[in-house]
């Protein structure tokens, strides 16, 4: 099909692959970071204010349901193309798993633990920081992990609106009918997703409190 082999191709394109992988990680990382900044507090907030729980969860759900391609398309008239709109869309995608897991993590704590805390004279803030967050942390981390992995995949589409990243290779490869190019985008993306999933899995384990691990 092609005159040179895939390995030679990789050698030739190596620096570019690294550059795009870096970009890819940056887009995903920034989006997830922002989603954590917003999602975790929001998730905590909705455990305390039951009235808005459904509103917020279903709103976040809507963004999750929209096809990513459509969402990228919708954002162009509003924010144009490039890095920022891509971050914004990915941020919206990352939001739901984080909010939802934070909410579930805190909600799944045995109510008697919270009651004991109140009865012993802990303030709401103390209950949150000393009990709820430490206990919910592994589940929250699980949400972050899901968001990140999904976003690594979705971020390839961000190349369509000029955000760069490994999607560049994939789309170029498709339009040029160049399989090497497609693979040069797809394989690093897959590897990135797998290794990030593995690393965040370790972090999740690390964050699980000692006393909870065995049970």
């Amino acid at each position, binding site marked *: 099909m092609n005159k040179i082999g895939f390995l030679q191709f990789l050698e030739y394109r190596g620096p570019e692959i690294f550059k795009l992988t870096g970009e890819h990680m940056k887009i995903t990382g920034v989006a997830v970071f922002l989603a954590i900044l917003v999602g975790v507090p929001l998730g905590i907030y909705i455990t305390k204010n039951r009235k808005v729980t459904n509103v917020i969860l279903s709103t976040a759900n809507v963004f999750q349901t929209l096809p990513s391609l459509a969402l990228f398309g919708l954002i162009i008239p509003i924010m144009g193309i490039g890095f920022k709109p891509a971050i914004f869309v990915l941020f919206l995608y990352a939001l739901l798993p984080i909010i939802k897991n934070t909410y579930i993590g805190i909600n799944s704590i*045995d109510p*008697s*633990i*919270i*009651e*004991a*805390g*109140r*009865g*012993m*004279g*802990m*303030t709401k803030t*103390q209950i949150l920081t*000393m*009990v709820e967050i*430490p*206990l919910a942390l592994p589940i929250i981390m699980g949400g972050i992990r899901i968001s990140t992995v999904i976003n690594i995949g979705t971020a390839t589409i961000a190349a369509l609106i000029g955000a760069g990243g490994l999607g560049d290779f994939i789309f170029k490869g498709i339009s040029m009918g160049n399989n090497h190019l497609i693979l040069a985008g797809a394989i690093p993306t897959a590897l990135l997703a797998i290794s990030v999933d593995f690393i965040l899995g370790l972090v999740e384990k690390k964050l699980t*409190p*000692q*006393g*909870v691990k*065995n*049970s």
Partner: protein
Amino acid sequence: MIELKNVTKSFDGKNKVVKNLNLRVEKGEFVVLIGESGCGKTTTMKMINLLEKPTKGEIFIDGENVKGQDLMELRRNIGYVIQKVGLFPHMTIGENIELVPTLKKWSKEEKKARAFELLELMDLPAEDFYYRYPSELSGGQQQRIGIARALAVNPEIILMDEPFSALDPITREKLQDEMTNLQEELGKTIVFVTHDMDEALKLADKIAVIKDGEVIQFDTPEEILKNPANDFVEYFFGKDRMWKTPEMLLAKDIMKKKFGKIGVNGSPARAIEIMKERETNTLIVVDREGEKKQKPVGVVTRNMIMRNSGHSMKMREIMASSEDFIIDENTNMVEVLNIMSKINFRSIPIVNKDKLLVGAITPISLLNIITEISPSIEGGEL
């Protein structure tokens, strides 16, 4: 001292869970709130540390209205034990016990010393348990930690919400016994919620029977059994719980076969040792130690020993001795109670027709019989 004055609680503004309730718990008293589920007993208890705010009425602790007080400080100074224990699973046993001291910003050394002290008090090897996690403990051990945690800053008042009802019967009984001993030692003011009348009779100095958010009767266990205020109380505690026919009960039915005893020549130190081992304050003094046939000659209490802490004293010189409180095994319950009300110690020897010691009666054995006997009198009716 805790005082609830005309306290009313309603969650929805219409139905009153607690109605105009008055209750006065004296310092050092073990008060049990008992009633069917949904009667408002737990809500009543939770209003004392303002986990529930009274809709109307006032609550005083040592004469001070709780309303004006710093809520967190108030709760930190009242021990709180709940049915599901609620230990923090991500913290070690040590950290759990040290929680309130941590909130009160004690130093590390103070906290650890106190936690060790409490673990010892709860009969759990501190060196081992301090570093373990709640999930590694049995239900009974967890609740012991729950109690230790409530005692951490040595509060005057402890609130307990059905602390033993989730435990298996054997563990429950054990913890109840421990609670009795603990209370004898510490003399806290305790408000204890339960729906288990056996538990109430076993633990309480006074019982408040609650129905539909009102106190129907507030009295000593004996008085409640003897003179129930109305049909509900009578029904609740089991109709005819033997009190109607106490003549039928004989000393030999009531007595315990295992109890603390010591020979007339025993030393005070040895008596104290036996008391510790038996977890009692009263021993029966017998003529010969270590033999099967023994005759009781007197009774000795911890106080008597303390008063006569002379060096070479023997039980013979310390004990109280009288024919009056050595009871024949066929004496009926009414007489036993009469004799017990006249003496000021808590264990009396029971003898057979040959004047040989066969058992002892203590307040606990009396309460035990109350709970055991009722079905057999009325053909199982409860």
